[in-house]
């Protein structure tokens, strides 16, 4: 155990042994972006989100570390903190867990303090604060690979001596040295030896202390990250920066349309073949209709979009893992300042391109409460991945493909980009409205640490896409399948002479017609109306619903969804539908998380009605103008 230098000369706690006793609980503490979650995932085998910017983890997660030959240990992953004085909701979580104030969670039995070894002098002051808690502590210096590669070094034994607690040098990313944590996790863990600590409130004194002990630990500061400097020379260049950005955005949208196409065609063919296969096997009658026309056409219509959604996620993962996201926040700060927010709000907004739910959680890093609420309220305007199937389907049906902007973008990709911009402008406009009225506040300062750029690894990209694909398929197999079956039932009753009724006379048809007067001014008929109702469960459900409705309608079921839509909607109606989806709040999970994060129904109710009204009015205008 050369890497672990414990000096347990105070009372050692008994190792967890007695059967029935709760497992030992150990918390991961450290500054933001020091690699806590990477270490957590390695210890527990879980796959919590890791990315290269400060403030990724915003709530606590518990996992079990299974160490061969030992009882399992519970590990808690926590949001990053700079000191023990919480300034934002995520830091409050860490504070509450450490002090035992988190409801339903006892105070941890021990702490693993994760510091970035390439930033030791800046991160060591937190050690003073954590050691003063007098909890058994192991100090982990992470990023050993990076430290060595940039020519830095540290004497862990000398540092352990200075701190009175064991110190290990590991690389959570490569796994190097992680085995040495087992001794701390399962052995008799000890309260740190009493060493002289600086007054915690005196930041300069803490920093001087950090300097002194890192000198005694013969710490060699690593050379500056060369590649980070070079890349910033391009990405933050006054001319090249914006140019590269524009090219990347164009490439993203073009590729979502063109690169994903062959894969989508493949999935579509597979769905069609398997549907035909089922039809051949199943006896004619209601069961065949339920399985093939109801469930399979509903689920299949949505599953087709999996390749496209994965491609979008690939770009988001690259953005987050490389470290470019923090630069994007830097660049966006001026625009955000103009509407009364700051660059930090841009990070949740960008992750809302994947899904608004984690984005709303991510607003916990925003210190000012009014800024935070404003960001929560505008996040659902950002085009989440659930809107993508709806947009693609309608664009492909109504907009002919032609080269555009000198061949850089096709018309379809440009239309998609336009819809993303529309959502962004609605978000910005709403922020301005809120920040100049009900959520007005003093300008809040923008302070953000720029992480070094890191090369995303193939495994981390692969695993995140895999998890995303599973989540998507799970949704298709639960919500979308459920709605498809329910819809099939509603569309099959009341039976006429023991036969399925024509769809407009079924219960579903009656419901759709009931709301038809309301949506007719927007250019939507009752079939679209049924889709709008079901899309309240989740936006992409409308695609499944239309799949089911047209699957059951003998006039349409051969022609395919696109052709069916072309018959159902005028061009004006199609644009109105796009605008409606861009603005309307059709997502129960988002409303639920907004309620939880804002602590009541007031803000989600305001959000629902505001977005709904905006969607209705703008869709009406679009339809009126275009027809």
């Amino acid at each position, binding site marked *: 155990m050369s890497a672990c230098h414990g000096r347990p000369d105070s009372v050692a706690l008994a190792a967890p042994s007695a059967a029935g006793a709760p497992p030992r609980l150990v918390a991961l503490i450290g500054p933001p972006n020091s690699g806590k979650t990477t270490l957590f995932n390695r210890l527990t085998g879980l796959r919590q989100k890791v990315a290269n910017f400060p403030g990724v983890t915003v709530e606590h997660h518990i996992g079990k570390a299974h160490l061969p030959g030992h009882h399992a240990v519970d590990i808690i992953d926590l949001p990053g903190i700079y000191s023990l004085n919480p300034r934002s909701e995520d830091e409050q979580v860490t504070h509450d867990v450490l002090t035992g104030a988190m409801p339903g969670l006892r105070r941890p039995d021990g702490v693993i303090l994760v510091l970035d070894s390439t*930033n030791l002098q800046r991160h060591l002051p937190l050690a003073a604060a954590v050691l003063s808690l007098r909890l058994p502590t192991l100090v982990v210096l992470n990023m050993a690979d990076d430290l060595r590669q940039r020519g830095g070094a540290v004497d862990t034994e000398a540092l352990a001596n200075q701190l009175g607690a064991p110190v290990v040098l590991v690389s959570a990313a490569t796994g190097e040295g992680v085995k040495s944590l087992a001794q701390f996790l399962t052995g008799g863990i000890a309260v740190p030896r009493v060493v002289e600590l600086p007054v915690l409130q005196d*930041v300069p004194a803490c920093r001087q202390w950090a300097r002194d002990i890192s000198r005694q630990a013969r710490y060699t500061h690593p050379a500056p990250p060369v590649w980070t400097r070079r890349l910033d020379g391009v990405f933050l260049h006054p001319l090249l920066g914006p140019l590269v950005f524009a090219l990347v955005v164009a490439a993203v949208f073009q590729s979502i349309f063109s690169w994903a196409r062959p894969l989508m065609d493949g999935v579509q063919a597979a769905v069609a073949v398997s549907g035909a296969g089922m039809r051949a096997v199943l006896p004619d009658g209601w069961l065949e209709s339920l399985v093939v026309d109801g469930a399979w056409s509903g689920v299949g219509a949505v599953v087709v979009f999996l390749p496209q959604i994965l491609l979008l996620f690939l770009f988001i993962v690259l953005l987050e893992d490389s470290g470019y996201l923090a630069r994007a926040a830097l660049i966006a*700060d001026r625009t955000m300042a103009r509407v009364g927010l700051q660059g930090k709000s841009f990070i949740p907004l960008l992750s809302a391109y994947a899904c608004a739910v984690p984005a709303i959680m991510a607003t916990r890093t925003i210190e000012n409460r009014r800024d935070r609420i404003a960001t929560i309220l505008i996040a659902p305007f950002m085009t989440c991945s659930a809107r993508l199937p709806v947009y693609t389907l309608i664009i492909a049906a109504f907009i002919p493909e032609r080269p555009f902007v000198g061949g850089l973008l096709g018309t379809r990709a440009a239309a998609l980009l336009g819809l993303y911009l529309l959502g962004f402008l609605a978000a910005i406009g709403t922020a301005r409205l809120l920040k100049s009225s009900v959520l007005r506040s003093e300008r809040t300062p923008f302070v953000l640490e720029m992480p070094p750029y890191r090369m995303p690894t193939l495994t981390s990209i692969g695993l995140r896409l895999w998890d995303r694909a599973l989540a998507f398929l799970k949704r298709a197999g639960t919500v979308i399948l459920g709605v498809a079956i329910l819809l099939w039932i509603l569309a099959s009753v009341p039976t006429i002479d023991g036969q399925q009724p024509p769809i407009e006379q079924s219960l579903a048809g009656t419901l759709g017609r009931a709301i038809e007067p309301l949506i007719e001014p927007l250019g939507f008929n009752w079939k679209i109306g049924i889709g709008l109702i079901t899309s309240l469960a989740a936006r992409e459900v409308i695609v499944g619903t239309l799949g089911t409705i047209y699957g059951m309608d003998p006039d349409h079921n051969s022609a395919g969804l696109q052709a069916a839509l072309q018959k159902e909607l005028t061009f004006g109606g199609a644009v109105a539908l796009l605008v409606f989806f861009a603005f309307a709040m059709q997502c129960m999970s988002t409303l639920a998380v907004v309620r939880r994060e804002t602590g009541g129904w007031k803000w989600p109710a305001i959000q629902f009605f505001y977005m709904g009204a905006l969607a209705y009015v703008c869709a009406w205008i679009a339809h009126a103008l275009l027809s």
Partner: protein
Amino acid sequence: MQLSFKAASRKRTPACLADLPAGSEAVIDRLDLPGDLAARLMELGFIPGHRVSAARSAPGGDPRVFRVDGAEIALRRETARHIVVRNN
């Protein structure tokens, strides 16, 4: 008022971090900022007596990235204006 940093330091009038030209270095003298923000900035490395250098900025020139203790921190001009620096 756009006093160049060099001119300012020659006259020994205090200069602020916001006026530090890209690529040059200075020593932080004091932070004329509200206590909470000053504490946060000090936790991040903006400590009186420590060296700071100016790196790249967002395309419009604001906010800017500063280097302290090997880390890069972005601040707006309006914040950097209240950080007083000296030449050595």
